[in-house]
């Protein structure tokens, strides 16, 4: 099987998609480098640091979803977007609930486990 000749439209599309991957990669790289650099080379306040790391991570996840996994708001992909959003909802409930419950328990009966 040899390389197929692309027609003009396809070639354009191919270039566009390639660009999108490169963009995604570049953005992800930046969003990775920022938190690593902050932790390695600066000593800003811990809370600020954590928040920055968190935001970078969140944005990077979206970048991956958008540029690598092609999740968009396009109409024909609603079902999957809904799936992901539903999963996020369940994750938030389960993980948030877990943290809420356990740290409350720690505070009331096991103070040694508070980090």
């Amino acid at each position, binding site marked *: 099987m040899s390389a197929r000749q692309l027609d003009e439209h396809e070639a354009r599309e191919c270039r566009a998609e390639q660009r999108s991957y490169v963009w995604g990669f570049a953005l992800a790289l930046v969003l990775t480098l920022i938190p690593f650099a902050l932790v390695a080379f600066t000593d800003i306040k811990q809370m600020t640091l954590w928040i920055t790391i968190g935001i970078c991570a969140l944005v990077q996840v979206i970048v991956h979803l958008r540029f690598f996994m092609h999740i968009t708001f396009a109409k024909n992909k609603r*079902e999957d977007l809904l799936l992901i959003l*539903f*999963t996020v909802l*369940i994750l938030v*409930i*389960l993980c948030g*609930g*877990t943290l*809420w*419950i*356990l740290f*409350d*328990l720690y505070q*009331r*009966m*096991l103070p040694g*486990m508070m980090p």
Partner: protein
Amino acid sequence: MSDVTSSIFGRLGWDALPFWSMLRDHSAMTIINGVIATGAAGMVVLGALAAIVLVTWLGKWKYLWSEWFTSPDHKKIGIMFIVIALVMLARAIIEAVFMRAQQAVGLDGGFLTAEHFGQLFTTHGTIMVFFMAMPFLTGIINYVMPLQIGARDLSFPVLNQVSLGLTAAGAALVMISLVLAPFSIGGWTGYPPFTELSYNPGAGVDYWIWAVTLSTLSSTLTGINFAVTIFKKRAPGMKLFRMPLFTWTALCTAILMIFGMPPLTVATGLLALDRYLDFHMFTTDLGGNMMNYVNLFWAFGHPEVYILILPPFGIFSEVFATFSGKRIYGYRILVVATMCIAVLSFTVWLHHFFTMGQSAHINAAFGIATMLIGIPTGVKVYDWMLTMYRGRIRLSVPMVYAIGFIMLFVLGGMTGVILATPSVDYQVHNSLFLVAHFHNMLIPGLLFGMLSATNFWFPKAFGFRLEERWGYRAAFCWIIGFMLAFFPLYVLGLMGMPRRSVAFLEPQYLPWTITAGLGALVILCALLCLLIQLWVSVRDRHANNVFAGDPWDGRSLEWSVSSPPPEYNFPVLPEIYSIDAFMTEKDRGQGWQAPDQYVDIEMPANSAMGVIMAVTGLAMAFGLVWHMWWLVIGAGLATLVAIIARGFVRHTKRTISAMEVQRTHEHWLEQVRRTTPIKRSQEQSTANHGLPVAPIEGAVQ
């Protein structure tokens, strides 16, 4: 033990045999319990042997292999799931009767040892939830749902086989634990640190962990399969809001399986790491913390009970509508209520550990969230009642179960709401009140649902009706037996009797425990009636046959095809224009008609993947339980090789020619044409061959 034997047999020794302790220690108690355990083990061994001999004698191995074990047909897989469920149901009920008998004489004594009693409630709970309820509802959804949405099969038939294989392996493991004992005594919840190595070093907890893990994996895969099937394989025109309610509940259950099973996988997985690799997740020392387990377990456990109850809700919706001769009242509201229940069920898990010591605001928040579930559930109850209201009700066997359900379930729901009040739960948590509550949901809810479904769809699956007289007897025994066996437990719970007690010191408990014991006997009668019903029905199968496919004047698509349906379900995929699709068709006089054109049908080819996964899964689990590492590694590699090899297979489809489809279908239509349609009053007579008279005015609505 020498090095060689221990490297082969791991820690499996003679003392695993159920009569071993009896030979060592001759006290009355040991002997009684040894005899019971040996009897049970003997039943397992003899049962297995008898089955093997019978199949060999009848020369049916090849038939079983090619028509059942390797069949990707969702209908056959569904039936096999249900067979597993029924076998396990029988075992778990017998165990329950033993427990009830023990407590009936359990005033500071009884005949069971504490250890034995511990194994009984653990296996009973584990089996009932993971190897009775789950396979039963999985089987019924498997059978019915594709027929209801006008599909030929599930999206992933081979995955379906694997699910069945894993469940079968788990069930087999639990059965093996009767012969090579012991099973866990940690309850179906398996709370550490009691189940940690330092408190329970034996094989029991490991049996529990791996049996449950096999079942969990199976259910996760099943959930994915169902959800994708419902999303992607509906017949043309079958919009989501035209799906029958049972399919809706199947969808919501599937979603709960997908998202509710992982917490259990995490919990049992971490417990296994603690036990096998010396981790300290839930241990008492070195920073372990058992509260995480409790949290994870119930993050699964609560969605689980709704996994168990939603399919019965769907079944009863179908049953109420069909046997009231009316369209279901408030279809859309019922759908929305189902979705609400499904989502809300992820927000309430803490109500299972109100007493652990967390702050009042957390308890209150989860308590209120729990009560909210009563609202959509109540909506459903009212919708069912309004469906019956002014309907032409026929008190068929499925309907008797349904009416038993609606009355008893409301009561159980109310006690659930009582338990959901944190300050009350502080009084009755871990007491028999709780046991009464959940059996009040599980038996009238889940089990009646399953039995109702069996009576309802059995004619579809096998082509003949289940005999009604014994069916009524079974249903009444169930209802009365349930009330006798479990209402006393509410009282006992209020009197402060803890669950899982082998004995007690309070004479005032005795009348209640004895009553409950009698109830258990009535339930045993119910089981017997079910068996007789099955036997009588098979005997009279020719007289009761309903080949035309529609014995109850049904409303959804599954009734539009022959009984039993052909392998490909529909000769031509139907087009759907409304809810209650088949009823509409009948109303327009369009039922039982030949299509303009037949086409070739592509069906999945047989595959041995399910069997392979069952065998390797069982071998791996068994090896892990007894520390036979060679077996674990061997079976693990075999699994991997099988999965990779499956990827290389390309002949995964089989074509059935249009001609053959046409021949079969026209033959059936010809037979139907020669059948006399019956009125509803003849429903339970031998005149019923599955062809109803045309619906009277207004039946369709």
